[in-house]
């Protein structure tokens, strides 16, 4: 493959995009800059007015395989990622069976190798994510697990979490926490507040998340472990991360999902299950503060928490419907529509928080649009628009608030190594 992307703006982690042509040959970026002559034999793609940036990386996805393939498969999940401009993912281990043994890791990674983008996986901290016994951490590491988490639940037993962190210290493995005190959390259907009272459903207070965050960071700090806090929904919880990091030098980072930046509990309206996820949507005030935190750098990464569920499951009564929304098809376009196009933040933030930092966190090579690097990039059209119909989205499920909505921006090209994965 010999491609010449002509006249685009190349975005990176630092600064504003700079206009440059990009020449890719045999999967390698041969040149970035203004070329005097078009490379011979190259297919020329006009990128005038478009943004060329590294492929995104989502460190928090639920691909449901093995066990719940009606919701999603690894194949469909990766196609949704490509559709949304994402060229690498880390799976969460709450499959059925859970990803808690080298056997399951091998099976998942084998399925992943059949896909068009790299698939990585996290592994459980405890066997079956049940919080009783430590998972075989050395074996998981050996099999290729990048990160340990019981995502979907917190580790309920603080002593066990501490021991796991101490034990894992030799394996250069880091931990990620889904923070939630189960008793305080209760039903886990929506945020506790005016909306939960109005709808007559027991709410989950932000306190349930914040208290566990503090607990887990204290344990990690005491054991000198790097801890990543997943899907932060509460502004006060975010301040907990900031305080430990800045005031105590704790090795802690945070993650924010697009939906916790964009939506609040009041959007649930009349029991719309497309706004039901865990941790739940909080308030507009939390939205604004989390966005500020993202700009301030409290959040190391953006991740979708892509959580597909079937239409039938989501059509049940609000309490019965499962938690989670899809995100891979929609993340980049929605972040552009809601924030970048509004001047809230620039392309550099998107590249840093949704491409470079998540790869760094996972000890993977960072994708960059610079000469000599492997081609791993996307072309985005800010003048375009995207309508998220079921047919458009490649995820097996379509449980997203953006269903049938038209947003500004369009992912036009996805290029990985020697392959043009997507062309629109």
């Amino acid at each position: 493959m010999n491609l010449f992307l002509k006249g685009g703006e190349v975005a990176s982690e630092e600064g504003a995009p700079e206009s440059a042509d990009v020449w890719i040959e045999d999967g390698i970026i041969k040149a970035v800059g203004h070329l005097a002559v078009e490379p011979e034999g190259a297919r020329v793609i006009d990128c005038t007015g478009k943004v060329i940036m590294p492929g995104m990386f989502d460190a928090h996805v639920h691909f449901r395989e093995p066990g719940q393939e009606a919701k999603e498969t690894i194949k469909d999940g990766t196609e949704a990622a490509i559709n949304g401009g994402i060229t690498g993912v880390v799976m969460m281990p709450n499959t059925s069976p859970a990803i808690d043994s080298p056997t399951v890791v091998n099976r998942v990674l084998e399925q992943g190798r059949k896909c068009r983008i790299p698939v990585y996986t996290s592994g459980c901290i405890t066997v079956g994510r049940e919080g009783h016994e430590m998972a075989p951490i050395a074996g998981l590491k050996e099999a290729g697990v990048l990160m340990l988490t019981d995502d979907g639940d917190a580790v309920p037993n603080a002593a066990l979490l501490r021991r796991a962190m101490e034990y894992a210290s030799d394996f250069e493995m880091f931990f990620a926490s889904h923070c939630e005190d189960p008793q305080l959390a209760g039903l886990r259907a929506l945020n506790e507040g005016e909306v939960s009272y109005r709808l007559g459903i027991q709410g989950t207070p932000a306190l349930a998340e914040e208290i566990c965050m503090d607990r887990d960071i204290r344990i990690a700090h005491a054991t000198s472990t790097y801890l990543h806090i997943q899907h932060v929904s509460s502004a006060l919880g975010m301040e907990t991360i900031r305080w430990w990091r800045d005031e105590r030098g704790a090795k802690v980072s945070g993650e924010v999902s697009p939906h916790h930046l964009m939506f609040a509990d009041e959007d649930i309206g009349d029991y719309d299950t497309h706004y039901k996820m865990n941790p739940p949507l909080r308030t507009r005030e939390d939205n604004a503060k989390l966005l500020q935190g993202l700009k301030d750098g409290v959040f190391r990464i953006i991740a979708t928490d892509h959580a597909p569920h079937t239409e039938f499951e989501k059509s049940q009564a609000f309490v019965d419907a499962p938690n989670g929304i899809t995100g891979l098809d929609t993340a980049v376009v929605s972040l552009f529509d809601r924030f970048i196009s509004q001047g809230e933040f620039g392309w550099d933030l998107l590249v840093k928080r949704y491409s470079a930092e998540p790869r760094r966190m996972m000890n993977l090579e960072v994708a960059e649009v610079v000469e000599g690097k492997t081609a791993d990039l996307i072309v985005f059209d800010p003048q375009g628009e995207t309508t998220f119909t079921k047919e458009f989205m490649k995820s097996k499920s379509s449980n997203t608030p953006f269903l049938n909505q038209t947003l500004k921006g369009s992912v036009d090209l996805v290029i990985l190594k020697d392959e043009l994965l997507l062309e629109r």
Partner: protein
Amino acid sequence: MARKDFLDIESLDSEEIIPLLDQAVPFKDLFTRSVKKVPALKGKTVLMLFYEPSTRTLSSFEVAAKRLSADVIIFDVPHSSVTKGESVRDTIDTLQAMRADYIVVRHRLSGQPAAIARQTGASVINAGDGAHAHPTQALLDAFTFREVFPEMERKKVLIMGDILHSRVARSTSLILKKLGVEVAFCGPGSLLPQTQFRRFTNYEEAMAWGPDVVYLLRVQKERQDAPFFPSDREYHQVYGLTDERLARIAGEGIYVMHPGPINRGVELCDAVLDYERCLISQQVENGIATRMAVLFGLKPTKS
């Protein structure tokens, strides 16, 4: 009233509520006649779908439907496929074949009647869903209140007890507010969420507010997954209508309401039931008339 469903109070405005209350008046007048039936819903079918136990609401709807000459089917949920794990959605698809014109639903989950309403062309009436809404209870409460106080504006109602778990508190407070009544809540702090209404955790302070009606709620133990107060005895002493408190209430001429079923010795003492300004049995009778008005006023979309 051209609406298809009757799901909550929130979506009603006073222009819809007052005609419903007015419509219930002639229905109530029927009850003193020898023939209590009218042919309004002759040939129509009302399906009762009660996923939660109920005595008074179920029989109240049954009587209301029969007095309108409708055919009534009571779907026996405890002995149905529901116990075999059938989802509500699939049950409704099956029941569509019965071509009911009205479906009266009670469910433990908030929002379930609304979900059913979206799925069927039949008129769906919410007979209580989780802690969300109990709109026909609210309507009968407003009707009863209006019988006592025809000028409702600026009267005061104190709703007392387990506000957190009560769908009655939610719906009745809203309907009264829409009719110009002042509403306040009183109860233990653990059962008293922050809402738009004034909030008292102290009984004496609440009574000093000067309510015209004290509306007692049952403590809903079945909805509590953790203890919210130490004991029934302590609850009765601190928040119950004790004999001493009843004496003061009677002295001030304050009316007492309760949606039932009552827990004697918890939210009220036995003597309350003999108190001349206790409106509990009047509420039950009015329940039939107001439910007739609701059934009569709804318009199913399918033939």
